[in-house]
């Protein structure tokens, strides 16, 4: 493997027929590269939640994934409405998802908490009316809990 592999994904807004494609793609690639299945699963879950949030809450955006042997970084960028209270948004069960989104099975308010649980480091920056940037890092070395 090269020193680092960078993947870029454009996430369309409101397109549920394609939701999860970017995450599936990354998952397949990591599997092929021979990463530990548990690491692959954690990346896939983190990325899917961020991808879905972009579609539901932010009119799409883009995701960059930086893969090295010892860590996988996922950077989500959108120009959506932003998050008013990040701490509240990160708490389990908090959701502003409308009913039509809930009827699809989303809106449990567990997306950001899942991302936090499954990554080793997460950082959310947001400006109202400007957009949101989420950085998540998953270490490849087995965690010593």
């Amino acid at each position, binding site marked *: 493997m090269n020193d680092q592999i960078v993947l870029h994904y454009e996430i369309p807004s409101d397109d*549920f*027929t394609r*939701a*999860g494609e970017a*995450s*599936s793609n990354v*998952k397949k690639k990591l599997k092929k590269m021979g990463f530990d*299945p548990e690491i692959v*699963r954690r990346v*896939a*879950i983190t990325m*899917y*939640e961020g991808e879905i949030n972009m579609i539901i809450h932010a009119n799409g955006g883009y995701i960059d994934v930086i893969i090295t042997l010892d860590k996988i970084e996922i950077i989500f960028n959108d120009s959506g409405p932003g998050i008013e209270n990040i701490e509240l948004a990160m708490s389990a069960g908090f959701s502003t998802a409308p009913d039509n989104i809930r009827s*699809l*099975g*989303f*809106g*449990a*308010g*567990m*997306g950001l*908490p*899942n991302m936090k*649980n*499954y990554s080793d480091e997460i950082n959310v920056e947001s400006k109202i009316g400007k957009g949101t940037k989420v950085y998540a890092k998953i270490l490849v070395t087995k965690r010593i809990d």
Partner: protein
Amino acid sequence: MTVEELIESKKFSVINKASNTNKEISKPYTCDLLSIAMGKMPERAAWVTVMGNINTLAVSALADASCIILAEGCALDEVAKMKAKEQDITVLSYDGPIFEGALIIYNMLVANE
């Protein structure tokens, strides 16, 4: 127990059969909220749910479910059916409630031990 053995039990009807049905089933898992399922579903689960849309398929693939069982006779919508074929995911259906569907699988797993 493998997905193939679950299919052969004829307790569920087949909506889509993946090319690989030799996947082991670890345990049944039930939840209709995708983010909870995503975070909590054990690997290689037989996921019993009433949600038959493409997002269910995406979550099952990402969370490494072995198969999906749609309870209460729920069907996959057309887009989801295509996606199941494309992504090669086994989807079964069950006329009864979620709990009963999961219990059948649980009992089969215990009997198989």
